[in-house]
């Protein structure tokens, strides 16, 4: 009986502790506090530039990129909220248009292919960006500068399949496709950078397609266990090397430029924000990205902490 009374009191105390913000972070749905350097900006109590919401897709690299953006924008004077793990581009796009989120780290070529389904593969990055800006205009969205850092879609095969069918490039799959099961995320079936593209551009027809995730743990596990032989992953993913997966060369150039690029609502663009994000984009290199990915994906470090450490090391936060 006393247990109940203790429970009531205990719970109220706990509630009090929680709400006085033992953590010191502001209220609201998803304000993530970047530790140490980021908090230098809390000296300026009311941000002069207002607030901005950054969304991210549901994989660790994108979450980390979102926190990179968060760090530089906080330093620039914004009040930033981050919504993590929203989902794939198909879900993020309407969210951006509705204004649920304002900014999201994207990949130039893949985004273009999504917005304009007629885009051919293999476009160089500057052409990609120009086309993107035009295509996004009607949606009241735009992109800023593309980073030299790339993380594009790649088709990989597990070691045993690559050996068995002597696979080095994607068109090697034409002959053996019917004996191979491919894995990918839900949206892969309809994407021209994924299953649909393989069918249309390469004329590959697989034995079966299994819905897994976006190059994440389910995909890695399925490839390792040979539940699927071929899958779509991301080029900066350190797991590819770790698991001896074989990246198949895109000989028909159907993939697109995977440069990291901020996609943003037009009504949020201003000189300060653009300068801050462009500086970050130009600083980030592919090697940096691979290193950061390794930290969040393999070493499982906290994406916010990893982002903060990087920004500090580059003097950006």
């Amino acid at each position, binding site marked *: 009986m006393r247990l109940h009374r203790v429970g009531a009191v205990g719970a109220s105390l706990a509630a009090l502790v929680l709400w006085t913000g033992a953590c010191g972070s502001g209220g609201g749905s998803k304000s993530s506090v970047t530790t140490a350097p980021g908090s230098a900006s809390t000296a300026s109590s009311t941000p002069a530039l207002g607030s901005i919401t950054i969304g991210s897709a549901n994989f660790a690299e994108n979450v980390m990129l979102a926190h990179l953006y968060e760090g530089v924008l906080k330093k620039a004077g914004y009040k930033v909220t981050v919504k993590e793990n929203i989902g*794939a581009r*198909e*879900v993020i796009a309407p969210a951006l248009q509705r204004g649920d989120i304002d900014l999201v780290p994207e990949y130039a070529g893949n985004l273009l292919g999504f917005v304009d389904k007629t885009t051919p593969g293999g476009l160089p990055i500057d052409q990609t960006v120009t086309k993107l800006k035009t295509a996004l205009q009607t949606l009241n969205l735009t992109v800023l500068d593309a980073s030299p850092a790339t993380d594009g879609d790649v088709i990989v095969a597990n070691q045993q399949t690559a050996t068995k069918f002597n696979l080095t490039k994607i068109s090697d799959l034409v002959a053996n496709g019917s004996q191979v099961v491919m894995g990918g995320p*839900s949206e892969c079936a309809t994407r021209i950078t994924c299953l649909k593209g393989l069918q249309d551009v390469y004329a590959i027809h697989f034995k079966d397609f299994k*819905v897994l995730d976006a190059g994440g743990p389910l995909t890695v596990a*399925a490839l390792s266990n040979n539940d699927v032989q071929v899958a779509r992953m991301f080029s900066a993913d350190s797991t590819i090397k770790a698991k001896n997966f074989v990246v198949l060369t895109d000989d028909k150039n159907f993939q697109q430029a995977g440069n990291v690029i901020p996609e943003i609502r037009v009504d949020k663009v201003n000189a300060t924000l653009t300068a801050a994000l462009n500086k970050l984009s130009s600083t980030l290199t592919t090697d940096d990205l691979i290193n950061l990915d390794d930290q969040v994906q393999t070493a499982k470090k906290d994406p916010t902490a990893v982002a903060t450490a990087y920004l500090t090391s580059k003097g950006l936060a």
Partner: protein
Amino acid sequence: MSLPAVISLSVRDLYRWYANGDHWRGSQGIPHRLEEHVAMSLAVVLSALLIGLPIGLLIGHTNRGAVVGVNLANIGRAIPSFAILVIGAQLFHIGAKPAFLALLALAIPPIVTNASVGIREVDPDVREAAKGMGMTGWQMLRRVEIPLAIPLIMAGVRTAGVQVVATATLAAVVAWGGLGRYIIDGIGQQDSGQLLGGAVLVVILSLSTEIGLGAAQRALTPAGLRHQGSAMPGAAVVAVEAKEVEKFAPAS
């Protein structure tokens, strides 16, 4: 988007999705996914009965381990099904196995609790009378306690059944199939026809399960007790919840 616009577009998409012949064929088709879902739910509930019913009956009959029996459903309910599914997927390979085990973990508690409470609730006078008639413990269980406990036992089965059907939709997040696949893929591909189509199918299946198990409950309940229990959806959930929760009410 405005509500009326969303609704009319949704209805149109829904109709189109059902009208598409491709959606009724093959391993991604409605019949197959429906079968997957029903088969999994059936397997889980039967297994849960096989495991949980004897335990619950034993607890109720012997009055040992009553604390566990009575609290198990509450503890089970406190564990989010999403968490169980993810833990299951991380322990085993993706697919049917983690889904089955997670759903089993969900289904056993209400069955154990309801069986144990149902047996314990049997009027002590009736038990006395049975003992007076010379019944052994086993006979008492079989001829008196279980029949009297049927309403509560069946309520537990109904709770478990409906919960399993509902949570099985969530198993699609860890790459299982079933009707939840349409919901997850509908979200992923922003295909509202698919999303709605799957959701409607799950609702129909859930309601059918409720009604079907309600009918089973009526059929199994001894005639004299028929006035108990109702066929309203969720009534079973609440009836037993209220009853079992009274057990925790402050007693003097």
